[in-house]
C-alpha cells in the first residue's frame, strides 16, 4: 500500500494518524521531535531549529523554537483526540555539522547548536512529563527521518549510508 507522505520542513510541525508517513530531509543541527499516541495511532512531528529558551522570545505558532514546538504539537494532538498522558516521544538529529576532525583549529565555543537544541527539547518534554522512548541524536552526520504513526516506528537514514530504526 502506498502511504501518504507528510513532509515536515524546518520550523514546521505536522499531524497525522494511521496509515501515513512523516518525513524530514537533511536534519543537521535541527532536532526532529516525534510524538506518538499508541492507542489511537495519532502522530505528530516537529522540525525544530533553535532552543528558544531565552525568555524574551515570544511564543511562535510554528516549530522553530523547542518550547513552543512541544507545546503546539501537544495541544494540537489533544484536539485530534490524543490522550496527553499516553504521549511518548522519540528524538532524532542535533548533530554537529562542522566536525572537529575537519576543523581542528576551531576554538572551543561551548555547546554547539545541535546539543543546545536537544537539551531544550528534552527539558520541555520533561516539564510535560512526556517520556522519551528512544533517541538517535548528536554525532557529526546529517539524517533523514521517517515516522510511521501506525506502528510508532522511526527510520533514520544517515548521510554515511547507515540506516537505523528506533
Amino acid at each position, binding site marked *: 500500500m502506498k502511504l501518504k507522505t507528510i513532509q515536515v520542513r*524546518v*520550523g514546521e510541525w505536522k499531524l497525522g494518524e494511521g496509515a501515513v508517513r512523516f518525513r524530514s530531509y*537533511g*536534519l*543537521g543541527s535541527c532536532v526532529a521531535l516525534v510524538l506518538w499516541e499508541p492507542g489511537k495511532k495519532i502522530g505528530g512531528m516537529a522540525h525544530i531549529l533553535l532552543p528558544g529558551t531565552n525568555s524574551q522570545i515570544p511564543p511562535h505558532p510554528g516549530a522553530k523554537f523547542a518550547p513552543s514546538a512541544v507545546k503546539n504539537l501537544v495541544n494540537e494532538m489533544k484536539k485530534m483526540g490524543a490522550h496527553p498522558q499516553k504521549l511518548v516521544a522519540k528524538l532524532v538529529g542535533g548533530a554537529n*555539522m562542522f566536525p572537529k576532525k*575537519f576543523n581542528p583549529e576551531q576554538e572551543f565555543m561551548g555547546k554547539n547548536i545541535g546539543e543546545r537544541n536537544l537539551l531544550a527539547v528534552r527539558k520541555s518534554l520533561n516539564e510535560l512529563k512526556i517520556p522519551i522512548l528512544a533517541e538517535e541524536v548528536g554525532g557529526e552526520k546529517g539524517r533523514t527521518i521517517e515516522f510511521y504513526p501506525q506502528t510508532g516506528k522511526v527510520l533514520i537514514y544517515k548521510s554515511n549510508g547507515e540506516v537505523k530504526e528506533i
Partner: protein
Amino acid sequence: MAEEFILNKIQRDALQELCNIGMGHATTALARLLNQTILFDVPRVQRIKISRVPAMVGGKDEMVVGIYMRFQGPVQGNILIMFPRQSVLVLQEIITGEKKTEIILNEYFTSMLKEIGNILAGSYLSVMETLLGMRLIQSVPLFAFDLARAVIDPILAQVGEEKDYTLLTEAVFHLKDSPQLTGKFFLIPDPKSVRLMLESVGLAEN
C-alpha cells in the same frame, strides 16, 4: 516578533548587481589559483521563507562539501560555499594531480578546500567593502562534508531566531573547460543587517 522586511524590484536589482561584481572578483581570484577559466550564472537574490531554504540549496540526498564563513562589521552575515560530490572529485584531481573515484578528505585537501573558500569569500567581501563603504572582517572557514540540507542548518539557526524570512543570494559558478566542476556561493546576511545593507546600496524602503 520583529517585523519582516520587504524586498522590492529596485532593491533586488541593486543587490543582484552587487553579487554580480562580487562574483566577478571572486571567480577571477579562483581562476588565478586553479589556472582555469571560471564562469558564473546571473546571481539570484530572493526574500525567502526559512523553511524553504534547505530545498533551495540542495537535492534531498545531495552530498556536498560546505565551507562556511561569518563576516562581521556594520553589516554581518554568513557565506556558504558548496561543492557537490562530483565537483569535489574534480577539485581533488586538480589539487592533488591524481584521478580517484573516492573523495579522500585528508588534512591537506580539506585545508586547500578551506583556502578556496577563503579566497572566494575574501574577494567577494572586498567588493562589498568598496560598494557599501565599510570595513568587514571574515572568520576562519569551517568545513563540512554532508547532506546539503543538513549543512545549511547551523546557518539557518544563525539567521532564524528573529525572523521567519531571510534574504538569500545565490550564484552558481563553473569551470569553463570542465563543466562537471560547479559550485554555489550563498550569502545570507543576519536579519538585523538586511536593512543596513539595503540602505548602503542606497535603496532602503522609506
